C-alpha cells in the first residue's frame, strides 16, 4: 500500500512536470506568470512561473520520475517511492521558482529531503557519516546561493527574478564577479564539480538505487539549472573569464571524475564518479556558451548551450538507467562489489542488454544519445578555438584533449563494468540459486530509458530542434546546428549493424561450435578471469601521480617460502581533495594547539587579559 501510494505520487509529479514542460515550450519568450503569494514582507513574496529554460529540465524530471516509479513497483524498499516523490516535487518547485524566497525554500527542501534519502539505510556502516558530509556541503552551498541571490536582490531592489534580470545590465562588475563566484561554489558543489565533488561519491552510493537515479539524474542538473539562471539571466552578461573558468573546471572534473571511477570497484560509487565526469562535460558546454556570448559569437554560444542542455538530458537518462540497473543487480546478487559479481548476463536476461545500452551511451558510442551530445560539445569547443583570445585558446585545446582522454578512459571504465559484472562467470565463492529474470516492472523501467537512449541517439534532432528553440528564447540568438548532425548517427552505425547481422546469419547458416576456453590446457576456472582490479591496473600505474595508489600484499606461507598458501592483494587510492583537506585540518588543529598556550586556566592571567583588552580598547577609542 505504501509502495503503491509512493508510485502514484511519483506519477503525479511526473505528469505535473510534463505539463510544466509543455507549457514552457509553448511560451514564446519571457515567462508565463503563474502566480505570486505576497508574504508579510514584500521581500518574501513567492513567485512561480514557467520559463523556456526550465523546460528541458522539467521534461527530464518527468521522464525519470516515470521510469523510476515503474522500477519502484517491483523493486526497492516500499517506503522509498513516497520520499522520492516528495523529493521530485521539491525539484520541480526549484525549476519553476521565480523569486529569491521561493527558490531558496524549494532549494532547501530539495537538499533536506535528499538527505533523508541518503540516510535511508542508516544502520549500515558509513551511511550516517556520508549524510553528515552531504549536509555540510549542501548547507555551505545553500549559504553561498542565498548570499548571491540576496546581493542581486539588494542591487535590484526587488526579489522577483524578472526584476533582477531586468536590472542585470546595470550591475557593477565587482558585484557581478562576486555573485558568479558565489554561484559557482553554491551550485557547483551541488552539481559535483571538482574540487567540491567529494560528497557525491560518498552520498550517492549509500542511497537506495532509485534515489541515486534521481539524485544523479536530476538533482545535479537542477544545480546546473541554477548556474544557468544566474549566469545567463540574473547576472548576465559576464566577462570572458567566467567562461574560461567553467571550461577549465569542467575539463578537470571530466578527467578527474573518470580517473577515480576507473579505480573504484563499488558499482554505485563508480557511477557516482561518472556523474562528476559528465557534469564536467556539461560545464564545458556552458563555459563555451558564456565565453562565446561575451566574445560576441552568438551562433557558437547557441551551439554550445544546445550541447550542454542535450548532454544534461542524455546524462540524466543513461545515468538513471545505470543506477536502476545497479539496483536490480544489488537486489538479485546482494552486492555491488565488482570483485564478487560476474556472469549476470545469463540471469538478468532483460536488464543486462539494457545496461549494455546504457554503458554504450555514457561512453559516447554511436548511435546512442551520449554520442550526439558529446559530439556537439566537441564541435562547440573546436568552434571556439579561434576567436576568444589567447588564454581561451589554450584552455580550449586542453579541454579538447581532456575530453578526448575522458572519452577513452570512460570506454575503458565501462568495458570493465559491463565485462566484469555481466560477462564471464560468476566470481562468487559459493554458488547461489539462479533465477532467470522475467520481464517485470523493473525491467520495463530500465528498458524505457534504454529505448530513449536509442531514440535520441538515432534521431538527435528530436531533442536538438526543441532545445534550439529554448536556447533561442533564452539567449535571444539563433543557434547554428551543424547540418550533418541528423544523418551522422545512422551513417556511423549502418555498416557495423549490418556486420553484426551478417555474423548472426552466418552463425545460423553454418553454425558455431561452442568449446571450452583455451587456457593453455589448465581447467577453466572463474578465478582465472581478469578482475576489475587487474583490468584497471595499467591505468592505475600510468596515472599514479593523480591516483596515488597504495598497495598492500600479504603472504600466507605454506610448507616452504616458495609455495605461499594464499596471497592477499589490496589496493586503494588516496584522494587528492581528501589529502589536501586532511593537511589543512591538521594544520588548523596544530595552530589551535599552539594557541592553547594562552589558555592556561589561571584566573589571574584572565584578569590580566581583560585589563589589557580594556586598555587597548580605550587607547583605540581615544
Amino acid at each position, binding site marked *: 500500500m505504501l509502495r503503491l501510494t509512493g508510485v502514484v505520487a511519483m506519477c503525479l509529479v511526473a505528469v505535473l512536470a510534463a505539463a510544466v514542460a509543455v507549457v514552457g515550450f509553448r511560451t514564446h519568450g519571457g515567462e508565463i506568470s503563474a502566480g505570486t503569494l505576497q508574504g508579510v514582507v514584500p521581500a518574501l513574496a513567492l513567485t512561480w512561473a514557467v520559463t523556456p529554460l526550465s523546460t528541458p529540465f522539467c521534461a527530464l524530471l518527468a521522464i525519470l520520475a516515470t521510469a523510476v516509479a515503474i522500477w519502484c513497483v517491483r523493486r526497492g524498499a516500499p517506503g522509498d517511492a513516497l520520499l522520492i516523490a516528495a523529493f521530485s516535487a521539491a525539484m520541480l518547485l526549484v525549476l519553476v521558482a521565480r523569486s529569491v524566497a521561493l527558490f531558496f525554500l524549494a532549494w532547501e527542501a530539495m537538499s533536506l529531503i535528499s538527505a533523508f534519502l541518503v540516510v535511508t539505510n542508516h544502520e549500515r556502516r558509513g551511511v550516517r557519516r556520508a549524510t553528515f558530509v552531504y549536509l555540510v556541503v549542501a548547507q555551505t552551498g545553500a549559504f553561498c546561493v542565498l548570499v548571491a541571490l540576496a546581493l542581486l536582490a539588494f542591487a535590484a531592489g526587488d526579489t522577483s527574478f524578472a526584476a533582477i534580470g531586468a536590472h542585470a545590465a546595470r550591475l557593477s562588475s565587482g558585484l557581478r564577479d562576486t555573485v558568479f563566484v558565489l554561484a559557482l561554489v553554491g551550485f557547483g558543489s551541488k552539481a559535483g564539480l571538482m574540487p567540491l565533488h567529494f560528497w557525491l561519491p560518498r552520498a550517492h552510493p549509500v542511497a537506495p538505487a532509485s534515489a541515486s537515479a534521481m539524485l544523479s539524474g536530476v538533482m545535479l542538473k537542477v544545480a546546473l539549472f541554477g548556474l544557468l539562471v544566474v549566469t545567463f539571466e540574473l547576472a548576465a552578461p559576464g566577462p570572458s573569464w567566467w567562461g574560461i573558468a567553467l571550461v577549465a573546471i569542467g575539463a578537470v572534473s571530466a578527467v578527474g571524475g573518470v580517473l577515480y571511477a576507473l579505480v573504484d570497484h563499488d558499482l554505485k560509487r563508480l557511477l557516482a564518479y561518472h556523474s562528476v565526469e559528465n557534469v564536467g562535460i556539461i560545464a564545458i558546454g556552458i563555459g563555451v556558451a558564456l565565453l562565446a556570448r561575451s566574445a560576441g559569437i552568438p551562433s557558437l554560444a547557441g551551439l554550445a548551450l544546445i550541447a550542454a542542455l542535450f548532454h544534461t538530458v542524455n546524462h540524466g537518462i543513461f545515468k538513471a538507467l545505470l543506477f536502476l540497473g545497479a539496483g536490480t543487480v544489488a537486489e538479485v546478487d546482494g552486492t555491488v562489489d565488482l570483485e564478487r559479481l560476474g556472469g549476470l*548476463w*545469463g540471469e538478468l536476461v532483460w536488464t543486462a542488454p539494457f545496461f549494455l545500452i546504457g554503458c*554504450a551511451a555514457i*561512453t*559516447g*558510442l*554511436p548511435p546512442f544519445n551520449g554520442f550526439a551530445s558529446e*559530439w556537439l560539445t*566537441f*564541435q562547440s569547443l573546436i568552434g571556439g*578555438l*579561434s576567436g576568444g583570445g589567447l588564454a581561451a*585558446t589554450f584552455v580550449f*585545446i586542453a579541454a*579538447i*584533449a581532456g575530453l*578526448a*582522454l575522458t*572519452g*577513452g578512459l570512460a*570506454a*575503458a571504465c*565501462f*568495458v570493465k563494468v*559491463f*565485462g566484469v559484472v555481466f*560477462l*564471464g562467470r560468476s566470481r562468487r565463492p559459493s554458488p547461489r540459486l539462479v533465477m532467470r529474470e522475467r520481464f517485470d516492472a523493473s525491467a520495463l523501467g530500465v528498458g524505457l530509458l534504454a529505448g530513449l537512449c536509442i531514440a535520441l541517439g538515432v534521431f538527435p534532432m528530436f531533442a536538438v530542434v526543441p532545445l534550439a528553440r529554448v536556447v533561442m528564447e533564452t539567449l535571444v540568438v539563433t543557434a547554428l546546428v551543424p547540418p550533418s548532425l541528423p*544523418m*551522422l548517427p545512422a*551513417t*556511423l552505425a549502418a*555498416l*557495423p549493424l*549490418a*556486420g*553484426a*547481422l*551478417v*555474423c*548472426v546469419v552466418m*552463425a545460423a547458416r*553454418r553454425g*558455431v*561450435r*561452442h*568449446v*571450452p*576456453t583455451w*587456457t593453455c590446457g589448465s581447467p577453466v576456472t572463474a578465478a*582465472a*578471469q*581478469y578482475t576489475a582490479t*587487474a*583490468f*584497471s*591496473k*595499467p591505468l592505475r*600505474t*600510468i596515472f599514479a601521480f593523480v591516483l596515488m595508489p597504495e598497495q598492500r600484499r600479504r603472504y600466507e606461507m605454506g610448507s616452504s617460502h616458495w609455495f605461499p598458501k594464499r596471497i592477499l592483494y589490496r589496493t586503494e587510492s588516496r584522494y587528492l581533495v581528501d589529502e589536501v583537506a586532511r593537511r589543512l585540518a591538521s594544520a588548523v588543529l596544530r595552530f589551535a594547539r599552539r594557541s592553547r598556550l594562552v589558555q592556561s586556566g589561571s584566573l589571574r592571567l584572565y584578569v590580566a587579559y581583560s585589563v589589557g583588552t580594556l586598555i587597548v580598547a580605550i587607547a583605540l577609542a581615544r
Partner: protein
Amino acid sequence: MIVALQVLVIAALAPLVQGTMKRLRANLQGRPGPSPFQPYRDLAKLLNKEALLPQGVSPIPLVAPGIALGVALTFAALLPIVTPNLAGRVVDVVALAFLLGLGRFVLALAALDTRSAFAGMAASREMTFSSLVEPALLLALLGGAVLGKGTQLSSLLDAPFGLAGMLAFAAFFLVILAETARVPVEDQETHYELTMIHEGLTLEYSGWQLAMLQSAADIRQLCFFVVAAMLLPGGTAIWPHLAWILGLMGAVTLVETLFAKLRLFEVPQLLTIAFVLATTSIVLRVLGVLA
C-alpha cells in the same frame, strides 16, 4: 555508389598492403618471408573453416567481428578519395574517433566474455593505450579545423605543410604505430600471449570470424595510412598520396626492423610524445606562426 567502389577497392587492397609489409620486414631481417599474397590465402582458408566460440558466452563475441568489420568499412567509406563522398561530408574527425571507439569497445567486451586471462589482459591494455592515443589522434587531425575549414577529413588535404604540419604528421605517425599494432608498441609476429594486445583480443576466434577480424585490421591499417598521407603535402591530386602511402609502408617496416618493442609501461611515454607533438602543432596553427 562510387563510394561503395572506393570501399571495395580499399578492402581488396588491404591484405596486399599487410602482405607486402610482412614480406618487406622479412627481407630487411634477411629472411625470404611469405609471398605478399599470403594474407589472401589465409583469408580464403579461414573463410572455409568452422568458427568456434567458448562455452556459455553471451551473443557479444558472436557479433563483435561483424561490428569491427563494419567499423573498418565505414572508416574506408569516409576517406575523401572519390569526389561526391556523402559519408565523408557527414562524418568528421571527431565522429571518426568515436567510431573507432565503437569497434574497440565491442572487441574488448567480447574478450572479457571469453573468461580467458590472456584475452582479459589484452582488453585491459587495449583500452588503456587507446584512451591515451585518443587525444593525440584528435589533435593531430584538427589542423584543418583550426584553419577554419571545418572538421571534415577533406579539410586536411590542402592545409599548408610547415612546421605545424610536420609536427601533426609526426604525432599521427606515432598514433599509427600504436593503432596498427606495430613494433615499438607491440609485435605482430609474437607467439607469446603475455605481450599480445590486438592479437590477444582475437585469441579465442577462429574460422570465418577470425577472417572478418583480420580483414578489419588490414582495412583499418590501410585507412590509417591514407589519412597519414593526407597530412603530407600533395594537395588534392591522388598520385602524390599513393607515393606517400608506399613510403609510409616502408617507413613503418623500417621502424619495426630498427627498433625493439618497448616495455609495456614505457608505451605511455611514446604516446605522451605524440600528444605533445600534436598539441604543439595546434598551438602553432592557432597562433599562425610557422604554420
